């Protein structure tokens, strides 16, 4: 009984309807009349009298045939009540290339799909079971690389963007996908510096069992590189307390795992910063991770984790370029110092510039703070971005008790910063070794009033003159001249008890001094005709 029932259950797809009199596209409701559908067999004459128009006026076969049957539906609104008229006519296509006869039946109809049976199910699944399929199923292989173990010669050399492979799968950089929640399936691409932040939901009581909060999750797999595997070492661990203060631990070799203690979960991973070192042939030789561990309080339902990965070539110091070669608008202007002990210009050629003390060797300007008090805002600097004119300032409250000289020095520090650079890079990719690629900063002093014993600087204006350099179709920005102007004013001695507020400003202005481009053309080729010297032999 079982197999006969199976045999009976093998159905075939319903035969396609090709008779135009029975085809009705607007008949959507089963056993009910569709409104304004004149071809619906479920409609009676009373229903037709309520229609206003026919949504499907004609049903025809393939219009490429020379003569085809057409079913024409129309409403006779003149009659009372309105009635539907159905006509079956032969429509003639007068084209000379119309099909008179087609001996290939499937030509004009869509192919019926194969019905899956237990016999052909595997073959159909293989052909059509993926996310996409092609006409040639044998050449298309939809497996992901994570399932097949990669061969040794494939992992030796990485190319830009290729996912960094580890023992089990890929080096994971959790990142937000679609929403802000962390997804652990994002692989890190080689040479793709990324920084991501995402939210992870946590239950603080079981925080020691949550894998993504433990340091081990991020360093346990080793990266596959050429013939050996590179283990991920722990570079440093910073511990962040509940109020946000971070302390760098002195010993980073002890693995700290999360645990639930005193209503807090300590040693939970709040941030990972991977540093991968590679050779110039594309082989990874070193990998280190810097962790930020923190404490989560019991009421927290979700924490934000931040991840970053950066790639450094071995034996180089990473310096982000501000353009290659011309400056790119929006990238910071690079600056540096002349190294000590080389006062003479001749020695310039052999000395490299030391980059300024700003972590990223940038020219910086005073950054306005919310308090607007010059003396309270210590050290807040903003980098000068190429092409963006900036102005910032603060307010200085002068009391009678302030002494002139220390005040002038403090203001100079506030305006110029701790170490104001002496040179600015002419191109975005100027190297420190090429001293001639750096433009010295010209310093000017302007006194607003007559020279008097007490002058305090009140404004710093940096004017950067740049020009367009290179070809007409792809001009590169090049800094030609930088002038820093300090304007000083006299500080009048105040009567005791009074105080005065003066504004201190600093500004950066970029001026384009490019000369108009001159299109130049290649010189016309000269025709160099010279007769050989014995051309007129034997007459000459």
């Amino acid at each position, binding site marked *: 009984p079982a197999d006969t029932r199976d045999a009976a259950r093998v159905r075939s797809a319903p035969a396609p309807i090709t008779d135009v009199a029975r085809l009705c596209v607007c008949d959507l409701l089963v056993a009910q009349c569709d409104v304004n559908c004149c071809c619906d067999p479920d409609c009676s004459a009373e229903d037709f009298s309520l229609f206003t128009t026919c949504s499907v006026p004609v049903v025809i076969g393939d219009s*490429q045939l*020379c003569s085809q049957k057409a079913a024409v539906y129309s409403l006779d609104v003149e009659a009372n009540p309105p009635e539907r008229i159905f006509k079956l006519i032969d429509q003639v296509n007068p*084209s*000379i*290339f*119309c*099909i*008179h*006869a*087609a*001996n*290939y039946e*499937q*030509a004009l109809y869509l192919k019926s799909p194969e019905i899956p049976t237990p016999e052909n199910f595997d073959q159909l699944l293989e052909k059509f079971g993926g996310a996409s399929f092609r006409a040639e199923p044998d050449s298309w292989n939809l497996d992901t690389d994570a399932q097949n173990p990669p061969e040794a010669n494939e992992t030796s050399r990485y190319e830009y963007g290729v996912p960094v492979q580890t023992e089990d799968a890929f080096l994971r950089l959790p990142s937000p996908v679609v929403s802000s929640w962390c997804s652990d399936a994002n692989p890190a691409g080689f040479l793709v510096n990324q920084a991501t932040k995402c939210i992870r939901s946590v239950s603080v009581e079981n925080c020691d069992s949550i894998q993504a909060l433990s340091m081990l999750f991020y360093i346990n797999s080793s990266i596959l590189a050429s013939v050996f595997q590179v283990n991920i070492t722990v570079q440093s661990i910073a511990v962040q307390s509940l109020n946000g203060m971070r302390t760098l631990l002195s010993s980073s070799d002890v693995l700290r795992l999360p645990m639930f203690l005193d209503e807090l979960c300590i040693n939970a991973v709040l941030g990972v910063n991977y540093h991968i070192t590679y050779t110039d042939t594309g082989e990874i030789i070193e990998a280190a991770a810097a962790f930020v561990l923190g404490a989560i309080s019991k009421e927290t339902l979700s924490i934000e984790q931040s991840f970053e990965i950066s790639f450094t070539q071995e034996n180089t110091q990473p310096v982000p370029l501000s353009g290659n070669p011309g400056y790119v608008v929006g990238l910071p202007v690079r600056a540096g110092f002349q190294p000590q002990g080389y006062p003479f210009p001749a020695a310039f050629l052999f000395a490299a510039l030391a980059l300024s003390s700003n972590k990223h060797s940038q020219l910086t300007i005073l950054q306005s703070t919310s308090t607007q008090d010059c003396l309270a805002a210590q050290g807040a600097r903003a980098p000068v971005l190429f092409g963006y004119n900036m102005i910032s300032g603060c307010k200085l409250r002068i009391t009678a008790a302030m002494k002139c000289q220390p005040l002038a020095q403090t203001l100079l520090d506030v305006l110029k910063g701790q170490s104001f650079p002496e040179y600015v890079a002419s191109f975005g990719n100027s190297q420190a070794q090429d001293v001639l690629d750096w433009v010295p900063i010209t310093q000017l002093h302007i006194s607003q009033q007559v020279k008097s014993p007490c002058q305090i600087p009140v404004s710093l204006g940096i004017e950067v003159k740049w020009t367009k350099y290179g070809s007409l179709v792809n001009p590169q920005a090049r800094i030609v001249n930088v002038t820093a102007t300090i304007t000083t004013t006299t500080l009048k001695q105040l009567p005791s008890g009074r105080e005065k507020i003066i504004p201190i400003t600093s500004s950066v202005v970029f001026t384009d001094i490019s000369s108009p481009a001159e299109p130049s053309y290649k010189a016309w080729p000269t025709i160099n005709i010279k007769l050989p010297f014995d051309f007129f032999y034997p007459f000459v």
Partner: protein
Amino acid sequence: NNSSQLSSLPLHILLYVNGIYYIFYFLATLAMIIYKSQVFSYPDDLLAPDLAVLFLMAILEVPRLYLGFKGNLTEAEAPLGLSLGLTVGSVVLCVYLLQWQTYVLWADVLLNAVLLSAYGLESGLKVTAIAAFVS
């Protein structure tokens, strides 16, 4: 003067016109097969027989016309008989292209009908000529 010349002038004219018409017919049918293969669904296993029939017909046409001319001009019945036999083959292939091709367009019908009528007329004239030569 009919007794001194048995060659049939109408047959000669018809063969000549047939030759020119056949060149046009061959090119037009080939172009239409290419058009059909682009516009309609024309699988390779149906395209091959149609093209084979067309080229076979072209190959048959050359000796058919040559033998027809030769037989008529030399007033010999053997080449003319052979040409008649080849005409039968051409008629069969023409009927295939008219009726059993994968797609028969209206232009196909016209071209093949004209060719069939030419073949029919030719066959009639050849039979008359053979009868004249034999007797």
